[in-house]
């Protein structure tokens, strides 16, 4: 089980925002993080990745403690088995797609697994293109493949669909499903779109605006929040 029980408080001049998440995420499944804007979905992903430090709680992946305020453990980003894809500005604009993948790979050599994924996702012909020559969907697909070059056990996707049209979203979902079937990873994805969550997630973690966390199957959770 992947246990995420963390909280963080942001204080502004006008108000105090408390971000809280207490979820048991299923391993080797795709889980959607769902909730209104401002409940802290992205911040939670960032805390899991190690980009931000929670005020308290714990993040335990299998037997590995990634963060524990009680035991005073906070693993640095480089020691966390995590791949992360942002909403945008993922790929390095000065490098071609191939260079981006090589830069992310160990010893700058793209592994056979990644070559197989590229074959399966028909992105092979884009290897010599630069990020500014790709469509938004292609950029996101390459970003996901690049995140996999590090062989992570957890893949975090922070609103990867937000800038894409319906066709590109469907293509990206297919690709994520393909990756999931090949690598059997634990994927956590943020999306506002219920149809997308229904399509790809096996578990939903719903963060409510009053700091509650509700977990369940997409059908149960999303119908509850209609």
């Amino acid at each position, binding site marked *: 089980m992947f246990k995420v029980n963390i909280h963080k408080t942001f204080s502004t001049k006008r108000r105090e925002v408390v971000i809280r998440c207490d979820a048991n995420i299923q391993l080797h499944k795709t889980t959607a993080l769902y909730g209104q804007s401002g409940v802290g979905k992205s911040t939670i992903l960032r805390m899991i*990745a190690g*980009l931000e430090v929670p005020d308290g709680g714990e993040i335990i992946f299998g037997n590995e403690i990634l963060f524990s305020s009680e035991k005073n453990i906070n693993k640095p*980003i*480089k020691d966390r088995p*995590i*791949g*992360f894809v*942002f*909403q*945008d*500005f*993922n*790929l*390095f*604009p*000065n*490098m071609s797609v191939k260079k981006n993948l090589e*830069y*992310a790979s160990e010893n700058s050599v793209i592994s056979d697994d990644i070559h197989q994924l590229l074959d399966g996702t028909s992105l092979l012909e884009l290897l010599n293109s630069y*990020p*500014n020559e790709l469509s938004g969907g292609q*950029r996101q697909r390459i970003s996901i493949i*690049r*995140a996999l*070059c*590090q062989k992570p056990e957890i893949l975090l996707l922070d609103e990867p669909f937000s800038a894409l049209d319906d066709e590109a979203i469907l293509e990206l979902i297919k690709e994520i499903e393909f990756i999931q079937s090949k690598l059997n990873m634990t994927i956590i994805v943020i999306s506002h779109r219920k149809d997308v969550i229904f399509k790809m997630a096996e578990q939903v973690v719903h963060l409510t605006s009053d700091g509650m966390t509700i977990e369940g199957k997409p059908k149960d959770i999303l119908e509850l929040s209609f």
Partner: protein
Amino acid sequence: MLSPLISGFRNIPKNLIESTYLLKKSRINAIWNVFLPNIKTSIWSALLLSFAHTIGEFGLVLMIGGNLKETKPASVAIYDEMNGLNYDLANQYAFGLLIISFVLIVAMNLLTRKNQTRIV
């Protein structure tokens, strides 16, 4: 020199910086392979600005370098020719400086425009 460099570093999207952390790259590696290549335009702007400023420098060159006969900056040459009442030669030097400054400013504007449309 510093101001274009600082603004170049500040304009690097936060996601790009964090991507290097997430790919487990060291600071030095990230600076060399990602940050510097992505602010190449700012580095060129900084160099051009410094060059443009230096080529028109007068007081400092005269104070530190003295007034050499063999080689001298255009600004010092203009000063000398003006003192010698050789207005034609002074005008030619001034025209040369004007052309160089114009070319540098056009180059800098082109670079800045290119930079504004680059990061995707």
